[in-house]
Each structure stands twice: as C-alpha cells, then as structure tokens.
C-alpha cells in the first residue's frame, strides 16, 4: 500500500502545483517539489534490508476486476533499483534545477511535468499488470514530450519533442500489441502469472510475434539502433531534464522491460540474437558518432545511446543462461552478463548524471557548450573540472572508478560467448567481442574529448558569452554527490551487490539458485585477457585521439541525406501528405456526404450481420394487441416525419421534429417507462430551446439542388435505414444469440440499494460508463465553448453546410 501511495504522490503534487503556485513565490516552488522525491527515496530505501533478505511486497487494488485489470504494485529487487534511481536522481536533479533555471521561467509548468514524469516512471517499474504498465509507459512519453518542448518558442525544441513522441509512442503501441498477444496465450495480464506460465508461452505460435512487438517497445524507448535518432534531438530540453529523463531514467525503461521479460522470453534464440546484435550495433554506432559531435550535449546523447546498447547487449548474453538446464559450471558464466547489466545500469546513472550536470554548469556559466569555442577552462573552474574528470574516466572504464569494474566484467561477459554451445553462435563469438572492444576505444576517445577540449588548450574569452567562473555552490552539490558515489562504488562494490543487485538478480533469474549466480566483485583478477583489452583500449584510444584530424574524414561517408533522420523525415512528410489527401477526399464539408457514409456503413454492417446470421425472425404470436389510440399516435408521428421532408422553413422543421419527439415520449408513458419518457420530454424541450436561440444565425433553407440520380440514391439509403431499424425492432424480441443481461439487474435493491432499476444501472452497475459519459459530455461542452469563442475572434462566415 505504501508503494501505491508512492506512485500516486507525485501525481497528487503535480495536481497541487497549479493550485498553490499563485500563493508562493516562483523561486520557491522547486524547494516545495524537492520534498517529494526525497520522501519517496527514504520510503523506498527503508525497504532495502527487507528486500535484501529475499522478501517481495505485493499489493493489489482491484481496478476493473471483471476485465482482469488491477492496479497491482510489486516491489522486488529489480523494481527497487529503478525506484531508487528515479527518486534518488530525481531529488538531485530537482535540487540542481533550482539553481539552474531562472525564476523567470514558467517553473510551475516545469515542475508539474517533472512530477508527472516521476509518477509515471514509478508506475512503470512498480506495476505488475502489463496494461497498467503500458498506460504509465505512454504517460512517460507524454511528459517527456512536454519537457523537451519546455522552451516551445524554439522550433528545434518542438521538432525534437515531436520526434521523441512519434518514435516512442509507436514503439509503445507495438508493445501493447505484444502484451495483448501474451494475454491471448495465457489469459492473464499479470507479469508474475506470465512468468509462471513460461512453458505455455514458449510453445505457442504467437511467441515470436509477441517477442518482437515487445522488443520494439523496449528498443524505441531505450533509443536502440535504428530508433536512436530521437535521443540527440531530445537534447533541446533543459539540461536537468536531459540528465534525468534522457540518461538516468526514462531511456532505461526499455532496459527495465527487457530485464523484466527475461524470465519469460529468456532462453529463446530470437530473443538472444535480437537483443545482443542490436545492442552491440547501438554500442558501436553511438560511440563512433559521439566522437564527431561538436556540441557537448549531443556528444553525451550519443554516448548515452552507446551505453544503453552496452547494457542491452549484456542482457542479451545474459539470457543464454536460461537456454539450458542449470549447470554449476556453465550457468554463472552467462548470468554474470545479466549481473553486469544491472551493475552498469547503476554506474551509468551515476557518472552520466554527473556529466550532464557538468555540461549544464559549463553552458550556464560560460554561455556555450560548443567544443570549438570552449577550451582552457581548468584554471577558472577547477571544481567543475574534477566532476568532468571523474565522470569521464568512469565512463572510459579507468580505475579507481566504478566504470572500470563494470567495463572489465563487460569484456568478460562478451568473451564468454565463446563458451556458449547453444544457438550455433560460431564466428559471431569472435566478432561481437571485437566490435564491443572497438566501441570501447571510441568511448575512450570521446571521454578524452570531453576533458581535454573543454578544460585544456587555450582559453579564448572572446569566443565565450560570459567570463568563465565557478557556478554557485548549490549547483555543485548534486554532481558532487554523484561523483562521490562513482568512487565509493569502486571501493565498496560488494555492499551494493549484497543489498541491491542480489535481490534484483532474483527477479531476472527467478528459477536459478541465487547463491550460485551472484559473483563477488573485485578489482584485481590477475593479468588476464580483460585487463589487456582495457590496456589496449587506452593505448589505441590515445593514438586515435591524437591523430583524430587525420582519420575524421571517415565521417563524411555518411551523408545527411542517407541517414536514418532523412528516412524519418521522409516517412513523416509522406504520411502527412497522404493522409491529408485522403482526408480531403471524403471530408469535403457536405453534411449529406457524411450522413451517407454513416448510413451505408450502418446498413452494411448491422444489416449484413442480421442477414448472414439468419437472425431475422418475426413471430407475432407473443405480441400484445395494438390499441386504436396507439395506432393514432403512430399515424401522427408518421405524418410529421413525412411532412418534415416538405417543410419550407426551419421553424416548421423544428416544430415537426418536436411532434415526433413528443409522440415517442407518449409511447414511453404508455409502455410504463416513466424514466425514459421524462428524459425524452425534457431533452425535447431543451433541444427546442437550443434551436430557438441559434435560430437567428442559421441561413434560410434553400431548395436542395440535386440530380434525380442523387435523389434516388438518397431515397434508397433513407428507406433502407428505416426498414432496417424496423426489422431490428421486430426481430429483437425473438433474438436468441446472446443471453439476456437483465438477470444481472434483478436484485438491484439488494446489490445497489436502489429500487429504481434504471438508476441503479446508471449509477452503480454500469457506473463506469456513466462516469466516462460525464467526462465526454464535459469535454464536448468545452469544445463547443472554445469553438464559438475562437470563431468569434476569427470572424468566420455564417455557414452551416458549406
């Protein structure tokens, strides 16, 4: 229950901000908001010892039990890691942005979106129900969209926001399809129950399609090749946002999903190949492209892409462990990869968060983050330099920083592919480590670029907007906490392993014995191949860095017009044009045409169904006798309907329409449906009043100009719709294809405490529908209101039907 409140708390605060922001000073909102992640971090941390003892916490709140959709929160080792990252990095980022963003910005919007994101992200990692997870997943995309476009007056911000949204949401929809396939296989939406039915899932025909759909969701979110293109453009967001969403948390949602799904899909050949190959390509492509960037933030974006690829490929290799029976010698070799993925996930958040904040500081204090203008900042910003140094060295995999540990283990994991005797890996067992090693060389190169191009070299004050100086103390707190963690984790990795990583391993490999698969992390393994690989990275990295200008022409091979960005642009413009052309074809502004579409489809589908299923059956034997006065009312209604066709003025039409309505209401009374009659009468009156007020704006009715053929066509449609409805009315009494639902409502007094069954249905049995209808009604009302107000402003002409 506490975890559930933890998910809801950010949303509550986000809702509160608009209410309170007028009463507190703008620069204080951030401090007010900061309390949320700190409190949540403390709450989640309080579970660490219990989770480390192997407990898990589950709490279910029934949401729509009849559809199997429940809001179940599940706290285990894996969600614990993410929960701590989200709230921990969240606290630091909010603290940092209190100093970073000027009080002139729309801070209440900013923090509102940020809290929305935090709640959504917590929802993703704590949900056990995949549909609830999906909802939160899309909510993170939406809040990321709002945050990227925070400076929405800039065109690049809007374009970046849209790109991120389009790519991640389409992936999300694919993922939803995957979840629905899993539901079709197992009949459950709960991840824990899915894990329990692994055998059924792996045997099923839908296994591969579901796998691919879910991976699409994970790859788009985690910016894997070739969907990585949105991440560099997302750097238009304010730097705290980039540090939080686009390096530490949101982009790791895909990693989370893959880790969470490993017990279900792990061991499958497709799963292993897709994740490993995509991960390694992303790793290489990201680091290769990072080297050529001139913008520090873009460089970090590509580096994030590359690091995400690294974690992804580790999860791929780690899934081999599930491909064969547990073996004391062989299994730990591959579970080490999964372990390293989780370990590096934490490490990456610490050093990359610090680096992003460092870039933010440089940008904030100097006015640029362009590497061609920066240089020689060391004497002016020694504290900032130390952040950059520690962060970059950790990323490059140098001791004594945490990146060294996970990088060594990464090499070990990649080399372990040679010992795999499943999936016919063959020569790929050599190629994958080689590519991974090359990627690490480039990683080393861009880490050197970050340090040397920014802080060494000559200082050019004329190229900078502002005199270089250290930032206010407050901006340094957050990055210093992060780099302190970088160092601490290096010296005491096994504390982290015991409390955080071991329980998470239990979530990723629930079937394997936990003691056997958690390694002891140490920083000296003797002179082995991994150490020489690291040394090779350093030597070749330095050579490449020194000779960069001799080989950087290779980047000219990739022309902008051949890139994935160009493909994205092409897809977007083509679909936009295409859909516009298509829409213009049928949405031509003629109401007659719209009604024609609606009626033809109605007759086609409903009538077609009745004809095909042979459900038309007319049996008058049970019908009551028709009284004379009933016939009279029928005649009145019919006459009014026919007269309506020939009416020459709107007033007559309104009047005749009223006659039909009151006639129908009369039937409701006769057939003892007082609720319906009341509603019909009042609706009829209000509609007439509405007509009266809008009457004077409507143009006179013009005689319809239509060819004889058109009139015939319209006539046929009208008659067929009318007769179809009549037939349905006659048939429905004897319809037996479905069971009547009336028995659900029979005990309305006992079940809902009301004697009026109509209201018991509206307010209780089907209250969900009513609630949504109320919302729809409200939105429609606002729509009408805004349309009219906008029309007022734009001076549109008086047209009803073009």
């Amino acid at each position, binding site marked *: 229950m506490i975890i559930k409140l933890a998910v809801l708390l950010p949303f509550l605060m986000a809702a509160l901000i608009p209410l309170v922001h007028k009463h507190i000073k703008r620069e204080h909102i951030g401090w007010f908001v900061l309390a949320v992640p700190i409190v949540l971090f403390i709450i989640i941390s309080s579970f660490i010892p219990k989770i480390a003892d192997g407990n898990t916490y589950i709490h279910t*709140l*029934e*949401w*729509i*039990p009849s559809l199997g959709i429940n809001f179940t929160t599940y706290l285990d080792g894996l969600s614990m890691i993410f929960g701590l990252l989200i709230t921990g990095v969240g606290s630091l980022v909010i603290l940092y942005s209190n100093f970073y963003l000027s009080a002139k910005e729309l801070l209440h919007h900013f923090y509102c979106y940020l809290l929305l994101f935090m709640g959504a992200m917590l929802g993703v990692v704590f949900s056990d129900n995949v549909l609830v997870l999906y909802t939160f997943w899309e909510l993170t995309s939406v809040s990321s969209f709002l945050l990227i476009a925070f400076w929405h007056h800039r065109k690049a911000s809007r374009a970046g926001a849209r790109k991120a949204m389009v790519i991640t949401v389409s992936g999300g929809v694919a993922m939803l399809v995957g979840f629905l396939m899993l539901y079709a296989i197992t009949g459950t939406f709960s991840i824990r129950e899915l894990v329990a039915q692994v055998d059924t899932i792996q045997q099923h025909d839908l296994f591969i399609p579901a796998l691919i759909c879910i991976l699409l969701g994970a790859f788009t979110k985690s910016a894997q090749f070739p969907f990585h293109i949105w991440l560099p453009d997302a750097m238009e967001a304010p730097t705290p946002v980039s540090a939080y969403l686009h390096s530490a948390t949101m982009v790791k949602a895909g990693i989370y999903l893959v880790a969470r799904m490993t017990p279900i899909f792990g061991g499958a050949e497709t799963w292993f190949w897709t994740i490993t190959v995509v991960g390694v390509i992303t790793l290489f492509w990201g680091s290769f492209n990072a080297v050529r960037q001139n913008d520090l933030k873009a460089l970090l974006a590509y580096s994030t892409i590359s690091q995400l690829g690294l974690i992804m490929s580790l999860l791929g290799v780690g899934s081999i462990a599930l491909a064969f029976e547990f073996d004391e010698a062989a299994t730990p070799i591959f579970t080490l990869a999964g372990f390293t993925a989780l370990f590096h996930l934490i490490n990456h958040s610490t050093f990359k968060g610090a680096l992003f904040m460092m870039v933010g500081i440089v940008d904030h204090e100097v006015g640029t983050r362009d590497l061609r203008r920066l240089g020689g900042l060391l004497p002016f910003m020694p504290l900032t330099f130390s952040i950059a140094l520690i962060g970059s060295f950790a990323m490059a995999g140098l001791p004594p920083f945490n990146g060294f540990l996970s990088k060594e283990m990464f090499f070990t994991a990649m080399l372990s592919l040679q010992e795999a005797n499943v999936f016919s890996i063959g020569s790929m067992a050599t190629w994958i480590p080689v590519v991974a090693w090359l990627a690490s060389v480039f990683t080393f190169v861009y880490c050197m670029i970050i340090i040397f191009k920014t802080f060494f070299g000559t200082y050019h004050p004329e190229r900078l907007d502002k005199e270089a100086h250290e930032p206010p103390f407050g901006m340094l707190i957050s990055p210093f906490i992060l780099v302190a963690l970088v160092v601490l984790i290096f010296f005491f990795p096994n504390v982290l392993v015991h409390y955080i990583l071991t329980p998470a391993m239990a979530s990723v490999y629930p079937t394997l014995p936990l003691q056997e698969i958690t390694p002891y992390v140490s920083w000296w393994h003797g002179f082995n191949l991994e150490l020489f690989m690291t040394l090779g990275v350093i030597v070749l990295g330095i050579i490449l860095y020194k000779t960069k200008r001799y080989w950087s022409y290779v980047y000219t091979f990739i022309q902008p017009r051949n890139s994935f960005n160009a493909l994205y642009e092409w897809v977007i413009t083509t679909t936009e044009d295409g859909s516009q052309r298509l829409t213009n074809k049928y949405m031509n502004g003629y109401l007659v045409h719209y009604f024609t579409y609606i009626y033809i489809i109605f007759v086609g589908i409903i009538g077609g169904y009745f004809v095909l299923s042979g459900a038309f059956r007319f049996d008058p034997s049970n019908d009551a006798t028709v009284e004379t006065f009933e016939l009279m009312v029928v005649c009145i209604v019919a006459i009014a309907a026919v007269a309506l066709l020939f009416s020459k003025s709107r007033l007559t039409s309104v009047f005749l329409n009223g006659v039909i309505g009151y006639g129908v209401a009369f039937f409701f009374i006769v057939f003892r449906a*007082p*609720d319906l009659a*009341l*509603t019909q009468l*009042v*609706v009829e*009156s*209000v509609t007439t*009043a*509405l007509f*009266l*007020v*809008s009457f*004077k*704006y409507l143009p006179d009715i013009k005689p319809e100009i239509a060819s004889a053929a058109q009139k015939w066509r319209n006539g046929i449609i009208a008659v067929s719709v009318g007769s179809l409805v009549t037939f349905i009315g006659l048939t429905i009494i004897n319809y037996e294809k479905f069971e009547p639902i009336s028995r659900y409502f029979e005990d309305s007094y006992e079940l*809902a*405490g*009301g*004697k*009026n069954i*109509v*209201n018991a249905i*509206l*307010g*209780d049995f089907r*209250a*969900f529908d*009513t*609630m949504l209808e*109320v*919302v729809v*009604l*409200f939105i*429609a*009302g*606002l729509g*009408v*209101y805004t349309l*009219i*107000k906008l*029309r*007022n402003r734009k001076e549109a002409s008086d047209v009803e039907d073009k």
Partner: protein
Amino acid sequence: MKINDVILRTVVKGVVFIILTLGMYLFFAGHNAPGGGFIGGLVLASAVVLLYLAYDIETIQKTMPFDFKKVAAVGVLLATGTALGSVLFDVPFLSHTDGYFDLPLLGETHLTTVTIFEAGVALTVVGVVVTIILSINEEGGE
C-alpha cells in the same frame, strides 16, 4: 431585441420555482422512483434556459453568479472523485456503499454514495447545457 413580453416574464417568475423544485425532487427521488442525476440536471438546466429566454444574460448572471463552466468541472470532479474515493477504502474502483442513518429533522434517512456520484452527473449536465446555450447566444448578441 425589444419585445413586450410581460406575460412571459410574469409566468416565468412563478414557473421557474416549480421547475427548480421539480428538478431537485427528481434528483433525490431517483433512487427508488423515476428521476435521477441526469434527468434532474436536465430539468434544472431547462429552468435556467427558460429564465434566459424570458430575460437576458445580464439578469441571469446577476441572480446566479456562477461560471457554468466551473459548475460542469465541479460535477466531473465529483463523479470521478467518488469513483476514485472508493479506492481509498481498499475496494474496487467505483464501488458504492449505502446505509440507513438517523438524522435530526429528517428521521431515518437512506444515504448512499451513489447520490454524490449522481450529484456530479447533475452538475455536469447543468453546467454543460447552460454553457453551450449561453455561449451560442452570447456570440450572436455582439
């Protein structure tokens, strides 16, 4: 629009109260007899519309100084709030409960959470209907 509508105005003055009372009655009667939130709200809205037809917008806003958009918003919040509220008591979303209470003056009264939900529905209906009709008309008045 200057039309002599003394008769209409005089009649409306009396009738509006009857309609408003009927609306309230229908709203509360809905539980066990014909009526309910939707129909009660609609009747209330029709009273406002009638007032509007007989008088003009300024008079209505003087006598009923609500922003009807906000009325609708409060209604939606009430309806969704009742739904969410059940979650706090650890029962499925949108569960309703009821009970008999002994209240002063009213004697034994049947109170239910459905009534709050229905009040939300009624307020939304009143708010939306009046907003639509007023905004259509305001636009033409200029």
